Structure formats: C-alpha cells, structure tokens
C-alpha cells in the first residue's frame, strides 16, 4: 500500500480539467473526459512508471482518449466554440477580464492540434520534447503547431508583430466583429 501512485491522481484533477477544457472547449465534455481519464488511469496504473512525470502520463491518456472520441463523434457534436470563454465571463470580475475573454474566444477557434500544442508548451510548462512524446509527433511538429497557433491568435486578435498586445479596444472590436459573439 505504501507509495501507491494512484494516491497521487487527485493532485492532478485540476490540471486535467484545465487541459480537458482547452481541448473540448466545453465544461461538461471536459469533465466527462476527465472522468474517463481517471478511470483509465486507475485501472491501467501498471503502465505508469513510478518516479516519472505523472502529469504527463495523465495528460497523455486524456488527449489520446479525446482524439479517439473525436474520431468517433466527428462532426456530430454541436459546435461549442467559445464555451470556454463564456464560462470565464461568469467568474467574478478581475482585471482584464474582458481581454482574457476575447483571448479565450480566439483561442477556441484554433484547430485542436494547435490548441493542444500551445497549451502544453505555452501554458503547462512542458518542453517541446515532452510535448512531442505525449502527442506522438516530432518535437519540430509541436513547435510549428505552437507557432502557427500564436500567429493565428495574433491575426484573430488583430495584432501585428510591431504592436503591443495591450488588448486594446481595437483588439476587442476585431474579435467581436470577426466572431459576432458577445454576451458579457
């Protein structure tokens, strides 16, 4: 019983939910994905090597399950674009809320693989090599996906390399008009 790695799973629930949210862009799908991941991890704990990065192991199970399901449900699900963002708007006000919401709306429009790459290396602190192992593609592919994601975000937010990303009214308007989605 001593040192059962399954005891560590709860520590990663919040991280799994955030990662699942970035992939599914929908809170209830994200939680279903996390639930399936927890069950898979629990029952396949034998495939985890103690002492290695458990977060990476769990994220790998989660994203593999996401892509398996996506293949199965392809195009069947309603577009939940912006649900990630809409959820943020329910949160108590904090500085830059509107700007972050705009950012999240733009982020939700990126292709799945680009969101994944950017979240892994840009937000979760994995190296390109770690992310490459997790997503079963070469590190160069992760890098180019992340870079394409950044370029696309800059474009969606109306930012150019010579501008500061101040989340100005201009950026806000660009997102709103490009997307026609509000509700704040």
């Amino acid at each position, binding site marked *: 019983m001593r040192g059962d790695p399954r005891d560590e799973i709860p520590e990663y629930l919040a991280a799994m939910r955030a990662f699942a949210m970035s992939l599914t862009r929908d809170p209830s799908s994200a939680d279903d994905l996390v639930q399936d991941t927890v069950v898979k991890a629990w*029952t396949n704990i034998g495939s985890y090597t103690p002492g290695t990065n458990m977060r990476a192991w769990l994220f790998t199970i989660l994203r593999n399950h996401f892509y398996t399901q996506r293949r199965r449900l392809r195009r069947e699900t309603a577009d939940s674009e912006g649900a990630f963002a809409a959820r943020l708007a329910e949160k108590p006000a904090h500085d830059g809320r509107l*700007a*972050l919401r705009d950012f999240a709306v733009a982020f939700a429009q990126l292709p799945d693989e680009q969101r994944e790459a950017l979240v892994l290396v840009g937000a979760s602190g994995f190296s390109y090599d770690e992310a490459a192992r997790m997503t079963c593609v070469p590190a160069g592919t992760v890098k180019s996906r992340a870079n394409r994601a950044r370029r696309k*975000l800059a474009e969606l937010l109306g930012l150019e390399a010579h*501008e500061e990303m101040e989340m100005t009214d201009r950026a806000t308007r660009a997102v709103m008009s490009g997307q026609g989605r509000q509700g704040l």
Partner: protein
Amino acid sequence: MYAEMTQDDRKKRLDQQIDENLRKVYQSTLEEEVPDRFHDLLRKLREQGRPE
C-alpha cells in the same frame, strides 16, 4: 538590418504576450474548485479496486 532585428524582437515579445495571456486563461480554469464527482469517483474506485 537593425530594423529586422527589432522586428524579430517584437515578434518574440508578441509571442511571449500571447503565452502570458494563455497562461492567465488556463490558470483561471486551474484554480476552479474540483467538483465533488471526481472525489466521489476516486473513493469508489478505491473501495472496489484496491487488490490488497
């Protein structure tokens, strides 16, 4: 030449700012309270699953 360098620097800075915003968005989800269903699930798995 100088201009090209600063263009590169600016692009790098823009990328950093994009990542910074992403981390903020990501962080706000990360800080959410984990719903009870997950603790319940783990409790159930623990009860039925643990071999010894």
